């Protein structure tokens, strides 16, 4: 029920509070009523036809970097 997918914002209609998002070639119109700032090219989490939150690209990179660090720790151990 809480499953949601990361999609890329392709276009925005700020008057209607909607966006067209894309995932693996599939396009869908979703509501952006729950978000203030959103731009074309952003990745947003979509759930039941609503963009719930913007994915923070810097935080995602940090998590991936941490995976690399942990892998290094494991190799040492």
């Amino acid at each position, binding site marked *: *029920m*809480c*499953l*949601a*997918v*990361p999609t*890329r914002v392709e276009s925005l209609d700020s008057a209607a509070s909607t966006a067209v998002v894309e*995932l*693996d070639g599939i396009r869908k119109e979703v*509501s952006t*009523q*729950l*978000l*203030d700032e959103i731009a074309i090219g952003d*990745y947003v*989490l979509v*759930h*039941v*036809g*609503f963009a*719930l*939150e913007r*994915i*923070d*690209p810097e*935080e*995602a990179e*940090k*998590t*991936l970097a*941490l*995976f690399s660090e*942990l*892998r290094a*720790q*494991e*190799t040492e*151990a």
Partner: protein
Amino acid sequence: MKYVDEFRDRETAQALAALIKTEVRPVRTYRLMEFCGGHTHAIFRFGIIDLMPDNLQFVHGPGCPVCVLPAGRIEAAIKLAEENDVILCSYADLMRVPTGKRDSLHKAKARGADIRMIYSPTDALNIARNNPDKQVVFFAIGFETTTPPTAAVLKTASAMQLTNFSVYCNHVQTPPAMAHILSAGDAKIDGILGPSHVSTIIGSHAYADCCKQYQMPLVIAGFEPLDVIQSTLMLVRQINEGRSDVENQYTRLVTASGNTKAQALMDEVFELRPLFEWRGLGQLPDSALRIKLEYGDFDAEKRFDMQEIRSADIKGCICPAVLSGISNPDACVLFGTACTPEEPKGACMVSSEGACAAYYAYGRHR
């Protein structure tokens, strides 16, 4: 797929799991509750459970809205659909959940009731706009992830003065259920893998009081396999160090304060119900939402004078114990015999994220 594939890398998963095996202390066990059904499925679907040491166990939590909805609420919806000239709109997950009388929305639809499966609450709103001569009711369920979209369509319906649309509100809240499980203590857990997308909305602060009161380590974890394994490692480290903090692994989507715009929208439209029944957990105070008086015209319970119905669970079904983290699905005599995804007897087998469905799909031969 960006933000998916890189969080499913096999070699990283094996390396992180190897660290967990190195760091767990052999003298003790680690019982970790994954609160969400989404986590339960990730654990089985990606084989995470096979990478874990023997003394680390996952205990399945109540984070499946379809599973915790008492059957009486579904019976009330069936009654509404059959006795009134309405179009009832429901998420697909609910359609096959059996009531105590072995009825379901699906069967009611087969008998002729106008019950429609929808993907988004916006679909229900559009059905109402396209059928001005019919009353359209949206059967709203879900935790905090799913609640803001319902609030958004209620607000839109109000702005549009749509008189033929209403919501049967069954939205429930995560922190009270967590507090209940921790205060009962029956699940005997050492740490919690905290909700992913619920936390996107409510923020990591929402668990602070509960974890402090029960000195329970909690790590908010994403739904991808590397998220789950890294969060498990973080929990093992907290337990080893004797800490009980709220930590956030899912920083790309969860902040301390959450989505404040969504929270404001929920506050505008909904208020706490004094008491609400959860399957498995019983009557919990301040654990669910109802529509505020200002939006009362859109409350289906008021518009159709819907009455509470008590419905017993099907005999032998141990869904309540499964949802409380006390029993695993394979302890149920019905599991895999009388109760299968094709012929479900309990909600945990119906919902695609129920613990019984996960055991059946990925782990029944273990």
